[in-house]
């Protein structure tokens, strides 16, 4: 009898439609879809504008669909007519990103491993020494003077390469990843007589691929998006600027906009300023957007591990 009632009850709950469930589902699809559109459409607008005539923009502003009659590749033609600046910016950015990511990744992994070893008596002290720098800093001015006066790094690409190499957060993140590797691997290496560095290099590193991918991508992204240190340390004397700083100048300085498409010997009377900015933005950001679908899962993994602590 009682079992009969129970079954009846369960049956009823399955039949009775959960109205809140339906309401929540509808709201979710609505809200999330609208927000997703808000995330994509601005990018689309930049792309659409970059293929539009300057006239169309002056007439009816930036639109999502400039219309087939206004389609032109003129801004790209201008951009690639004298592509020195753009190619230079690409080369500088790619070199910085490659060198910085590889070096930073190796150093962060090596430090993270040593600080994760339970039999290393200095690990807490060193970790605190590193972590303290994210709690207290001297501020921008002393850092700037150190870079410019003491280390003499003004107009040097090293001024961009160095500061982004590692951060306390990345080291903590790496430590969290390494925690998941069984300590027995280190122990077995020791028994076989391997030194600490060899254990790290031959036994730990091959097991760290997801961590290396995640942290490598964080590093690569910070180099690719870098404009801050460039704005501090690279003056006009530097011939080629990193991509995002180049974009920054094209957007904010009329002179840079002109220089970006024409050497001193070419005169363009009516510069399509707005569409040129958009085309520069597309060329400077394109690779990130194209790569994004393939790499975003590593970032998600990184956030999930990183948010546990630190």
């Amino acid at each position, binding site marked *: 009898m009682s079992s009969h009632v129970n079954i009846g009850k369960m049956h009823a709950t399955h039949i009775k439609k959960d109205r809140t469930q339906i309401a929540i589902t509808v709201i979710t699809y609505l809200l999330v879809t609208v927000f997703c559109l808000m995330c994509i459409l601005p990018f689309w607008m930049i792309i659409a504008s970059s293929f539009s005539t300057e006239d169309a923009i002056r007439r009816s502003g930036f639109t999502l669909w400039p219309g087939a009659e206004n389609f032109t590749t003129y801004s790209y033609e201008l951009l690639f007519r004298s592509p020195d600046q753009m190619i230079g910016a690409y080369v500088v950015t790619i070199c910085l990103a490659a060198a910085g990511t590889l070096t930073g990744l190796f150093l962060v992994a090596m430090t993270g491993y040593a600080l994760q070893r339970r039999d290393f008596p200095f690990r807490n002290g060193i970790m605190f020494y590193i972590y303290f720098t994210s709690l207290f*800093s001297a501020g921008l001015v002393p850092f700037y003077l150190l870079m410019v006066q003491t280390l003499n790094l003004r107009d040097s690409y090293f001024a961009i390469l160095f500061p982004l190499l590692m951060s306390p957060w990345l080291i903590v993140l790496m430590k969290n990843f390494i925690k998941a590797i069984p300590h027995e691997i280190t122990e077995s290496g020791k028994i076989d007589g391997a030194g600490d560095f060899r254990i790290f290099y031959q036994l730990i590193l091959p097991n760290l691929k997801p961590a290396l991918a995640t942290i490598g991508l964080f590093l690569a992204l910070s180099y690719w998006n870098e404009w801050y240190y460039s704005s501090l340390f690279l003056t006009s004397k530097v011939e080629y600027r990193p991509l995002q700083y180049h974009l920054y100048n094209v957007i904010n300085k009329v002179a840079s906009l002109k220089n970006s498409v024409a050497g001193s010997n070419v005169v363009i009377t009516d510069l399509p300023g707005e569409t040129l900015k958009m085309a520069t933005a597309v060329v400077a950001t394109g690779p*990130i957007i194209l790569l994004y679908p393939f790499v975003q899962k590593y970032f998600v993994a990184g956030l999930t591990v990183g948010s546990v602590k630190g």
Partner: protein
Amino acid sequence: MDLDRTAAKRIRAPRQPSLGRTVLQHRTLLLMCTPAILFFFIFAYMPMPGAYIAFTNFQYNMGIYRSPWVGIKNFQFLFTSGQLGLLLKNTVLYNLAFIVLGNVVQLTFAILLNEVRNKGYKKTAQSIMFLPYFISDVLVSLLVYNLLNFDYGFISHLVRSTGGEMAKVYQNAGAWPFIIVLVNLWKSTGYGTVVYFAAITGMDSSMMEAAQIDGANAWQRIRYITLPTLKPTVIILFLFAIGGILKGNFGLFYNLVGNNSMLFKTTDIIETYVYRSMMNSFNFSQSSAVGLFQSVVGFFIVLGANAFVKHLDPDYALF
């Protein structure tokens, strides 16, 4: 017997190894940390004595330590001129808006996404929402310019075509708190949603199943299970965010506002002031005074927030 005991004693009570010996024993691991130790020494610790500039009338060609000492004059000026008060107000209010609105929106999206059954949609939505996080602030400023530029902006045209009057946004300081908060929400929602979503999926599912069998509807499950389970995570993330309340997002503010002094009243935060007074007006002393004030006060706020977290749950405390 006796002999055995003394031998055992000798073995059991090894002398405390000296520091030198410990260093020698772990030299490889120490060497592996050396690049990082050097890195933080050069780029984080070496500049610290330079905070001395804040107490001098800094002359670039004389260097830090030969510039004349002026005591706390720089700080006095910043306090009495009201400059520091304005910067503090802007920085703190923006951060409060970012923290409160940001967390509410992120939490809402994470909970809502969790209710979606369609896995493909869930994944796609997460990736798309995460996209703005990957974009440099330089590009973000261009996106905003595309929308709000008085002559060509998308929104400006929309307003005009519906017969409205568009304000000159780039000359109107009052509009910027809304714009900056919205842009920040746009940029950070995906990131925070992923963090909260991970916390939700990590939850014990047996409670959910039990509630479902007992006939709890979706809203009740959210209200009485998901939210209470997330409460500790939310509180801890909130406290850490409060710890950073004096730290501003320089890239966002500087790219959106730049050197447009018409907007400074409502948009100038500590970071942008420090940057401009150094790079544009070469006022190194005042710039560094503001920076030092931020560092010191910020440090104590972090300590306080951390103490609070430690009190709630020692596992999550930073140190």
